[in-house]
């Protein structure tokens, strides 16, 4: 039987054995349990697109965010958790099924407040289990932005979807769609033209066959925006979408822009609309009291007309048709049916959605450019939700501090820097502000404690002296004879790796400063196409002029200095040029014609000058502002004469690329930041893997690789800073390794970090706290197959093979990471009534080499890791040896005591047995028992509890505490500790002597009795006792 069995097994394996197939592991199969960690920040949160409340359970609410997915609160908005991390993170709308709001959630993706920096969506999704899992509803793949999902409260199979559609191109996917079979089939029931999309879709609160829709004609390009046209309109249907009529009775003639629309839940005839028209006096709020038959103009205050493309949400109090909230720069509230408004209380500006609590209109939730806010007093005071890490980075950089800091600028939230790790985790208080307005690039001076930051369009570039707390404004300014400088909204800056005080900026020219920005020299001609058709932003905006500077075009967007040669500079422009100089700017070579497969004028988003060769560089291009979402990345090794495509089919066809980061050691290891998350290649771009372990498909705007730690640090546009710790194992991945059952990756000797402070954090209960980088040793190995059957264990041994401690190995297929905190096992403590907390301390190992032994079934795999002491140690080598020796001495003493107490206990048990069962021996036994009990109560605590009813500490407790203090310290053993040690040692010696005397006296008599009665006292040897931990 067994033989047959093995034959079958062998047969099953043959196909694998004979084909020498190349192993290409992708995604989770390769990355195994290698995980990203998120460090926020959440203190300024990020842009919210849509809020949705559960209709009956006031604890449940959702936030659909602009670039950070869908978040659910189950505690009335105190805290939120992400529930959409496997899907595109740009959200248009979240809608609960009114008939099953606990379980059925619809999410339309693609944010709908169409600023220049918006992300894109990829369709419609539905969960039927409260957000646990999601299914894509086919038919909306090319919708780009979904503004509305409305469900018939009488029949969940009837659903209307409003598709706003593509922002930068024509699209026939726009319009209103209807299903009557719960989403299986859809009909487009309202369509105007390829440039007019559906905004608000509303259902009459009393009659689900009556619908209202606002249509909007709009378009954005890389250099301008247009809101408004003949086709913007409000439509009404009274036959569930079969026929539609414009309801404009009272509106001014001519073009309309974006229209916000609301119907009062408590009065179905009351409609409100905010209009953008050709007649400024008629802009703002309109009301209809006859269900749209006629309209009356109410108000054109600033709060009602400001930036309609960005703020058009109106919300009517569910209980009072005269109370209206309007999104806006500050947000407005009216309590007189829209005649007058006042601003809402202080919160982050730019309010996109705002809702009333389902039962209490005093409570208001507001979705802003800076997160979700709550008001408890009808909108006068607002407080922020503290655990939404939605920060939208345009750019990040890192320094070489330990732990290193991350620097970056945020959409509408200034510039910041904060640590990659911090005691207790990376908290709100760890972040420091270093710039106002919109923040973009933030760079640390290579040698001085100085930070450069900027705001939009380089209106200000700051040089901040951290130590002296001084700020200076240093942007390049035009001098006599200069052309007008054109800076991008997100203007490029670069510091030199060769000349620490050198600082570059780009307008249409490259500006160079060798004195940290005090004086500037232009070192290039206009490197852009200088196309005048793309330079008139004064009319941008359409019906409402919107010239914020965000559309400035024909500018330099990226500057890269070669890390190998200060005279090699690469420049990429937003209008498609790649230029390079090899002589520090004297001569520039426009290599754009040499690019392969890149449509003309495609935005050069980033150039990475390689460490692997002077002429080697990577360039990524993205054309999404022309509607071209394709990923593009090229590599050159000859200063741009020839280029090679490094994109493969593995990458989502719409995952346009904003950034690339090369590895500093392995030229074939590359990281690609796309609109839909991070991709990694280990073979120079032949195959790419989507990294999805705790990494949502969020837009990755910038990637840096921190050189000391080999961490990949990502600035995401919606989920803050996300880090993958130490990617060095990926350098080693090759066919040889992938074909092994188990492979340990090499690791550098690891420092046993000695620092430790306090992290008291009351008041942070509802705050986001970012995970720290583990300071433990990382043991990294590859498993060819997931370990499921049979035993698999891991332990740390000294080089002689003695077990020091056991670890819990990961069993994933792919790369596994196990951490070891340099500890051996804790001592066995004497048993007592209460716990001795000192006993939970495990000694640290000395520096040196250790064996990691992985046992998998019958096979054993060994790997050696090396630990080293911290360079920042505050103790001498001799003192450290003494500390280690004393730790061992105390450890042994603690275990000696444990054994003494064990012996006492065993003897007492036997004595009790005799007392209970042998009247003849009762006296002898009782004498022994009492003597031992006397002793025991001096050795260990025998009364009280672990809290305030605790007994006075006995020998065990004092010994345990001293042991823990010595073992846990990174400094020399103090004089006080040595004196205390002498005291405890002496006391213990005395107690041991006392024990020996009892054994000799009462014990002897008792043993004699046992012997006479052919009874035995069984006591484990010390070794047996201690091995049984």
């Amino acid at each position, binding site marked *: *039987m067994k033989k047959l069995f093995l034959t079958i097994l062998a047969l099953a394996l043959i196909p694998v054995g004979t084909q020498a197939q190349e192993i290409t592991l992708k995604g989770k*199969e390769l990355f195994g349990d290698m995980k990203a960690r998120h460090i926020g920040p959440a203190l300024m949160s990020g842009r919210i697109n849509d809020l949705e409340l559960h209709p009956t359970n006031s604890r449940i609410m959702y936030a659909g965010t602009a670039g950070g997915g869908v978040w659910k609160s*189950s505690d009335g908005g105190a805290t939120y958790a992400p529930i959409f991390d496997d899907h595109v993170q740009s959200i248009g709308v979240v809608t609960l099924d009114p008939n099953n709001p606990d379980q059925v959630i619809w999410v339309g993706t693609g944010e709908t407040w169409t600023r220049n920096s918006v992300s894109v969506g990829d369709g419609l999704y539905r969960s039927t289990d409260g957000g*646990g899992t999601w299914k894509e509803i086919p038919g909306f793949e090319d919708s780009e932005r979904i503004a509305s999902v409305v469900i018939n409260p009488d029949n969940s199979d009837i659903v209307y979807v409003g598709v706003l559609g593509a922002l930068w191109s024509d699209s026939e996917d726009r319009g209103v769609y209807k299903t009557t079979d719960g989403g299986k089939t859809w009909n487009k029931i309202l369509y105007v033209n390829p440039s007019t999309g559906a905004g608000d879709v509303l259902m009459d609160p009393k009659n689900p066959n009556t619908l209202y829709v606002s249509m909007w004609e709009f378009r954005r390009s890389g250099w301008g925006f247009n809101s408004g046209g003949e086709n913007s309109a409000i439509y009404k249907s009274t036959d569930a979408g079969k026929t539609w009529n414009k309801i404009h009775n009272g509106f001014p003639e001519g073009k309309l822009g974006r229209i916000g629309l609301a119907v009062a839940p408590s009065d179905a005839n009351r409609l409100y609309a905010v209009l953008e028209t050709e007649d400024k006096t008629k802009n703002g709020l309109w009301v209809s009291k006859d269900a749209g038959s006629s309209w009356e103009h109410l108000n054109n205050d600033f709060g009602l007309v400001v930036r309609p493309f960005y703020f058009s949400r109106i919300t009517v109090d569910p209980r009072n048709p005269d109370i209206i909230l309007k999104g806006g720069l500050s947000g407005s509230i009216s309590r007189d049916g829209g005649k007058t408004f006042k601003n809402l209380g202080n919160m982050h500006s730019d309010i996109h959605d705002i809702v009333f609590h389902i039962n209490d209109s005093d409570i208001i939730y507001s979705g802003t450019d800076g997160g979700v806010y709550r008001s408890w007093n009808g909108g006068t005071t607002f407080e922020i939700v503290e655990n939404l890490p939605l920060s939208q980075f345009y750019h990040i950089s890192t320094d070489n501090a330990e732990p290193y800091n991350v620097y970056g600028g945020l959409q509408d939230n200034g510039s910041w820097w904060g640590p990659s790790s911090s005691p207790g985790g990376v908290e709100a208080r760890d972040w420091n502000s270093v710039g106002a307005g919109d923040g973009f690039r933030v760079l640390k001076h290579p040698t001085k404690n100085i930070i450069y930051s900027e705001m939009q369009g380089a209106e200000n570039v700051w040089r901040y002296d951290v130590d002296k707390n001084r700020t200076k404004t240093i942007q390049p300014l035009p001098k006599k004879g200069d052309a007008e400088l054109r800076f991008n909204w997100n203007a490029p800056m670069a510091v030199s790796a060769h000349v620490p005080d050198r600082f570059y900026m780009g307008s249409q020219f490259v500006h160079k400063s060798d004195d940290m920005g005090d004086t500037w020299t232009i070192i290039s001609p206009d490197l852009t196409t200088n196309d005048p058709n793309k330079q008139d932003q004064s009319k941008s905006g359409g019906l409402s002029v919107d010239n914020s500077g965000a559309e400035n075009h024909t500018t330099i967007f990226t500057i890269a200095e070669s890390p190998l040669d200060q005279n090699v500079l690469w420049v990429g422009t937003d209008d498609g040029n790649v230029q390079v100089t090899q002589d520090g700017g004297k001569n520039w070579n426009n290599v754009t014609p040499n690019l392969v497969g890149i449509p003309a004028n495609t935005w050069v988003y980033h150039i990475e000058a390689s460490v692997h060769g002077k002429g080697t560089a990577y360039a990524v291009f993205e054309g999404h502002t022309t509607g071209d979402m394709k990923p593009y990345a090229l590599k050159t090794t000859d200063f741009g004469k020839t280029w090679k495509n490094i994109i493969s089919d593995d990458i989502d066809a719409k995952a346009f690329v904003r950034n690339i980061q090369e590895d500093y050691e392995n030229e074939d290891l590359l990281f690609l930041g796309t609109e839909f998350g991070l991709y990694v290649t280990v073979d120079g771009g032949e195959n790419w893997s989507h990294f999805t372990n705790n990494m949502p498909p969020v837009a990755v705007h910038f990637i840096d690789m921190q050189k000391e730690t080999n961490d990949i640090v990502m600035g995401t546009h919606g989920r803050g800073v996300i880090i993958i710790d130490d990617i060095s194992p990926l350098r080693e991945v090759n066919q040889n390794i992938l074909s092994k059952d188990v492979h340990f990756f090499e690791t550098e000797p690891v420092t046993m970090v000695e620092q430790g402070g306090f992290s008291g954090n009351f008041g942070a209960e509802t705050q986001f706290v970012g995970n720290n980088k583990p300071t433990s040793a990382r043991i990294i190995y590859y498993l060819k197959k997931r370990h499921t059957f049979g035993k698999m264990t891991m332990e740390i041994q000294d080089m002689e093979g003695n077990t020091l401690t056991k670890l819990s190995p990961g*069993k994933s297929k792919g790369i596994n990471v196990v951490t070891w*905190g340099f500890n051996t096992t804790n001592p066995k403590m004497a048993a007592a009534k209460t716990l001795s907390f000192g006993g939970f301390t*495990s000694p640290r190992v000395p520096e040196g080499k250790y064996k990691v032994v992985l046992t998998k079934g019958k096979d054993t795999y060994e790997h050696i890791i090396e630990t080293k002491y911290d360079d920042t140690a505050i103790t001498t080598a001799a003192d450290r040896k003494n500390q280690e020796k004393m730790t061992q001495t105390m450890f042994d003493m603690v275990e000696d005591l444990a054994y003494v107490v064990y012996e006492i206990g065993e003897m007492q048990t036997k004595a009790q047995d005799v007392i209970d069962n042998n009247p003849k021996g009762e006296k002898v036994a009782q004498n022994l028992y009492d003597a031992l009990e006397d002793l025991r109560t001096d050795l260990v605590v025998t009364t009280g509890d672990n809290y305030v009813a605790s007994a006075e500490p006995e020998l065990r407790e004092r010994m345990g505490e001293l042991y823990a203090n010595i073992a846990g310290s990174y400094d020399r053993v103090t004089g006080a500790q040595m004196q205390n040690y002498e005291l405890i040692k002496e006391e213990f010696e005395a107690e041991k002597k006392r024990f020996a005397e009892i054994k000799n006296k009462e014990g002897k008599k008792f043993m004699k009795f046992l012997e006479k009665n052919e009874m035995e006292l069984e006591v484990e040897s010390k070794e047996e006792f201690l091995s049984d931990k």
Partner: protein
Amino acid sequence: MKTLKTLFIALFVVAIAPVAQAQTADEIITAYFENTGGMDAWGELEGVKMIASANAQGMEIPVEIYQMKDGRQMVKINLQGQEITQFAFDGETMWTTNFMTGEAEKSDAETTANMKQTVGDFPNPFYNYADHGYSVELLGTETKEGTETYKIKLTQQPTMKDGKEEDNISYHYFDTENMVIIASESEANGQMMTNTMSDYQEIDGLYFPFDMGMAGQNITIKEIILNPEVSDTMFAFPEKK
């Protein structure tokens, strides 16, 4: 011989599974029970005692877990020679040990009621799940722990949370190669918690995971005793003297 047969089935599945398509949730659950000992054998099981240890860096805490077919449960840990009943349930009353006083305290009514609903989830909630009013759904395949799995959604009776009813949904990942569960997910306080299972080993014909990861904490099973001897007092709330 039984062992060999079970192993044989498991390996046979290894050989054929990649071809097998269009599984249903029921087929997967049945295969899971068959591959791990057989529906009948699982049905005959009256209870288990697991002797385990919880591993934290440098510390190994001995743990004893009792799970009985009639719903009685008990988890006991040993800290510095003290046996502490972490929680126990006798079918009616659930109780824990207060860490400060070392005294037994009854769990709150909601927690106890939620626990009561799990009576019958033995050896696990998939066993005769329909009889308990549970439902299952195959959601497709997903890569978990680097390997391909079938994702099955399990819906049990709603539980109570702070006075309100909440859906009770969990997700279970069955390795497509051998149909055993290698990971489970459920929501706790708004966050998804993942448990992993590995090191399946055979005890008298039944396969149990000997290694379980729970939110970064690992429980390693040292020994499993089938149909252990128990007494009522082990599970019962100790009335204060």
